[in-house]
């Protein structure tokens, strides 16, 4: 150090850099030579030392010594041939490589020698790490890479209007978006899209495909380049002048057109209209709504052809979801302020078109975009990652305690190495390398496990009308983090045993008997501390698991406001099949007539959504006698339902009446609202007879229905308005048959399909499932949380049990002699049992106390995700505490019972 500083002083000039460089090169060459010419080098060293020795001897003899005297003196002066050789080796460039290789070889030998121990440790670590990598792979596939196939999404934002909601509506009309795109200075571009199902027709088997109408800049702004053909041209997006062109997804190209390399330029049919294929999207790309899989893209100017509307022409129809690309250096807040300002100007110019809409615009980065699945996942995935982190910490504590116990068995080995002149640093390094090896083995095993578990998120998706997609896998980022986590874990669990072993008093260890040495460990606070940590962390995880499970139970037991059992759902879509408003309504009527005549059908109705599957729509409404607050969104859930809907769903109508066959296009327009609607907008008033305006039509409320939950079981009931299907009919929405059966709804599936196909053999029927199955989507996130927190919790308990068992069993074995003496002196078996169990009990109790305190602080963070239970739910805490206590004491029972069987004679003779 002194020399270095002196050199710095001396080299104050510019010489230093040049010399360092040439020195580096020189050293690198030496390193290479040392590595490649190892044997020759060894020979050289040996020869030189020997030559030196003989020179020395010759010198001594010249000075008059006798040969043997001279040789002895020479050896004395040299100080040991082997030592000198070793010192030269250490001076050799790359000496650290040698040491590292030697340590690694030694570590490998040690782990092979104790293959059972190694396997256990690697398994524990693998589970702990895999929990993290699994959640990470999901986070990577959803929050970090929200748009598959688009690498850089950090400058993209989604645009939402009104209060933050789980189910926001599209913010802009085409004309508003167009004006904003022209005016904005903060965005390099704004793209708009509207996604929904389309039908690929004119092929052997028509198929519903989720697709999007997009602005012409859609692909360019996202930076997605078609693998064949091109994206849209600017003029193709202009309403009125647009072209019937389509970009198809990779899957559509492969599945329907057999990957035809000449597909570009060919004509395909969508919703019975011809389109020219201009491009094929890259394989990964599935649209820009996170979690939803779109596979067809058409310029939005074709709205009339695809869905039968002319929405681009209307400034007052907000139907486009919007993504903006921020200009470099522009912050989200600046862009938000600008958009709000610009929008204010537009609203002032066109007040009529923006009467009902909320004006406040907010931007979100894609990872927490409320459009798509991330709006839900960004709340639970980081939480699960936190729990997985706790599990890994516990696994580290567990492995650390196992290593500590084992290091006692290696005390002699280490003492000998220290005695032979190994430095403390060398011992620590050796231990850490062994830990690193274990960590990396664990990490590798974790990656193998994660290969399976990363796909498990998809398993939670029930059959659904939504094109849910999730492509979680181990990507490069996850791989790097796994390696990093393995190394970090190794340092955490390896440091304690390493430091502890290296600081042992060599003399006493070598002199003393093994048993008395270990007695010092039996008092070790460190080991006890690790056990307490494991028990408390497992308690934390189990409490979280318990709270999630109870939330899920509460949600599942909660009254959704309808009766889900014995209900079969089946959906069809009429507009792609060529139906109009009039023919569609007639078809629906026939369907209801035929189905209600089937044996085993109690009642049947239709709706444009199904409960708890994220399929309910909404509209901007004007309500008689209600003045919205400034910025209040009057966008309200709106269900279009057939006659007898409430009877079929068993949602009671508390006042007034439900829809009947008589509510037709020719009769008075009527509506039913739910109680939440009345409570919110007409509190304390009689809702019957009030007027509601929806898109220019005035409906009169004729009934009030009980509240029912249509989005998530855990979200509060929201206002809903129901409109009769024959009056508010639109053939463009899916129509879902709701069939109440007397028996198992599944058995009716085939006769329902037959009935529909008798009416129209061409019409595809999809998502034929019992409601009890499809409504699983409404508890999707609760089930994910409960399942994973639950498995983390159980794993944690298992680890903690192994941990406390290991430590108590070990210390008991070390106390065999002491117990033998006690028994020889007349101690009762019961006393010995209590002695051992008492140790376990004290550790457990401490763990429970620490764990409860920890849980009380941590569970508060979960509050928002819980349903029907408080974050400090006494029942959960008490039962989890009891469970952990019982399991821990059971784990201690085994060594305690073994202790009572100690034969005093054997124990005393032992050692």
């Amino acid at each position, binding site marked *: 150090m*002194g020399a270095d500083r002196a050199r710095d002083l001396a*080299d104050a000039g510019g010489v230093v850099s040049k010399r360092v460089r040439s020195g580096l090169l020189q050293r690198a060459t030496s390193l290479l030579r040392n590595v490649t010419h190892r044997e020759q080098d060894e020979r050289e060293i040996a020869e030189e030392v020997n*030559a030196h020795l003989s020179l020395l001897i010759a010198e001594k003899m010249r000075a008059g010594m006798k040969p043997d005297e001279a040789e002895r003196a020479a050896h004395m002066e040299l100080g040991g041939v082997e030592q*000198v050789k070793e*010192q030269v080796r250490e001076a050799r460039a790359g000496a650290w490589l040698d040491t590292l290789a030697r340590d690694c070889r030694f570590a490998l030998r040690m782990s092979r020698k104790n293959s059972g121990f190694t396997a256990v440790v690697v398994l524990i670590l693998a589970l702990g790490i895999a929990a993290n990598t699994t959640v990470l792979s999901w986070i990577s596939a959803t929050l970090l890479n929200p748009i598959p196939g688009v690498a850089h999404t950090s400058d993209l934002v989604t645009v939402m209007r009104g209060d933050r909601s789980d189910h926001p509506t599209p913010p802009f009309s085409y004309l508003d978006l167009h004006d904003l795109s022209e005016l904005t200075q903060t965005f390099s571009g704004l793209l708009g899209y509207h996604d929904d199902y389309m039908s690929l027709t004119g092929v052997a088997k028509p198929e519903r495909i989720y697709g999007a109408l997009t602005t012409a800049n859609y692909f360019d702004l996202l930076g997605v380049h078609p693998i064949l053909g091109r994206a849209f041209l600017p003029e193709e997006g202009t309403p009125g002048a647009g072209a019937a062109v389509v970009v198809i997804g990779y899957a559509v190209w492969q599945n329907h057109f057999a990957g035809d390399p000449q597909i570009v330029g060919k004509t395909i049919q969508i919703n019975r209209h011809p389109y020219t294929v201009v491009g094929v999207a890259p394989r990964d790309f599935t649209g820009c709504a996170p979690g939803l899989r779109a596979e067809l893209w058409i310029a939005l100017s074709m709205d009339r052809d695809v869905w039968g509307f002319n929405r681009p022409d209307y400034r007052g129809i907000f139907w486009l979801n919007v993504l903006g690309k921020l200009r470099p250096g522009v912050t989200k807040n600046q862009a938000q302020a600008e958009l709000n300002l610009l929008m204010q100007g537009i609203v002032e110019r066109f007040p009529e078109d923006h009467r009902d809409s909320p004006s406040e615009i907010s931007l979100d980065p894609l990872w927490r975009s409320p459009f798509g699945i991330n709006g839900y996942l960004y709340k639970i995935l980081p939480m699960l990652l936190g729990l997985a982190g706790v599990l890994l910490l516990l696994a580290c504590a567990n492995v650390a305690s196992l290593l500590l116990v084992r290091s006692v068995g290696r005390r002699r080995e280490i003492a000998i190495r220290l005695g032979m002149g190994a430095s403390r640093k060398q011992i620590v390094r050796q231990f850490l390398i062994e830990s690193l090896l274990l960590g990396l083995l664990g990490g590798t095993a974790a990656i193998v496990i994660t290969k399976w578990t990363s796909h498990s998120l998809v398993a939670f998706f029930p059959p659904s009308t939504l094109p849910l997609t999730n492509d979680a896998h181990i990507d490069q980022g996850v791989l790097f983090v796994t390696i990093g986590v393995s190394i970090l874990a190794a340092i955490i669990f390896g440091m304690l045993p390493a430091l502890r072993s290296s600081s042992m008093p060599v003399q006493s260890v070598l002199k003393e008997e093994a048993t008395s040495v270990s007695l010092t460990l039996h008092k070790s606070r460190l080991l006890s501390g690790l056990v307490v940590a494991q028990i408390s962390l497992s308690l934390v995880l189990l409490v979280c698991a318990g709270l999630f499970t109870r939330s899920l139970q509460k949600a599942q037991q909660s009254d959704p406001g309808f009766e889900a059992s014995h209900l079969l759902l089946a959906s069809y879509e009429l507009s792609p099949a060529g139906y109009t408003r009039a023919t569609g309504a007639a078809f629906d009527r026939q369907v209801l007539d035929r189905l209600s005549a089937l044996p085993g059908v109690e009642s049947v109705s239709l709706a444009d959504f199904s409960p708890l599957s994220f399929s309910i729509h909404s509209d901007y409404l004007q309500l008689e006698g209600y003045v919205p607050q400034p910025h209040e969104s009057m966008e309200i859930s709106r269900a279009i339902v057939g006659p007898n809907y409430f009877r079929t769903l068993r949602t009671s109508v508390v006042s007034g009446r439900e829809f009947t066959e008589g509510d037709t296009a020719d009769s008075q327009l009527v509506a039913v609202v739910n109680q939440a609607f009345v409570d919110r907008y007409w509190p304390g008033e009689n809702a019957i007879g009030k007027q509601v305006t929806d898109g220019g039509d005035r409906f009169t409320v004729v009934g009030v229905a009980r509240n029912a939950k249509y989005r998530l079981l855990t979200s509060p009931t929201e206002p809903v308005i129901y409109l009769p299907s024959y009056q508010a009919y639109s053939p463009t929405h899916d129509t879902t048959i709701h069939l109440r059966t007397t028996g198992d709804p599944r058995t009716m599936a085939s006769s329902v399909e037959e009935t529909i196909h008798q009416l129209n053999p061409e019409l595809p029927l999809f998502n034929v499932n019992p409601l009890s199955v499809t409504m699983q989507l409404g508890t999707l996130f609760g089930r994910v949380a409960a399942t994973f927190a639950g498995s983390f919790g159980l794993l944690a308990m298992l680890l903690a049990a192994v941990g406390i068992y290991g430590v108590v069993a070990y210390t008991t074995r070390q106390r065999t002699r002491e117990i033998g003496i006690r028994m020889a002196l007349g101690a009762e078996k019961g006393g010995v049992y209590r002695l051992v169990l008492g140790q376990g009990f004290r550790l457990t109790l401490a763990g429970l106390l620490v764990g409860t305190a920890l849980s009380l602080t941590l569970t508060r963070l979960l509050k928002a995700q819980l349903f029907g239970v408080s974050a400090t739910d006494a029942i959960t805490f008490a039962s989890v505490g009891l469970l952990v206590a019982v399991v821990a004491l059971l784990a201690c029972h085994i060594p305690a019972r073994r202790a009572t069987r100690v034969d005093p004679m054997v124990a005393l003779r032992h050692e």
Partner: protein
Amino acid sequence: MTQEQTNLLQGTLDLLILKTLRLGEMHGLGISRRIEQITHGTFSVKTGSLFPALRRMQEEGWIKSAWGESEANRKAKYYRLTKAGMKQLETETAKWERIVLGISRTLEAS
């Protein structure tokens, strides 16, 4: 011996070896005897320090070695200074002079 002392001595040893080799090529024992002689025994270079130092300096490219015959017709490895070694000797000398100067000034001042 603490780390600092080792480093300081190591640096000094390099300087002494370089200076010694300036006179011409020499084998290990010769170097160590020459240093003892010049310093009147203040420094006695142990074999365990000499050979690692020679090795290190070789790898830095300051000295080169070749097998040869000693005075008494014995095999010995001879070391000689390279161009880089000459330069290094200059810098080390300058450095040493600065240290000496710095230290003596410090000592005089107090």
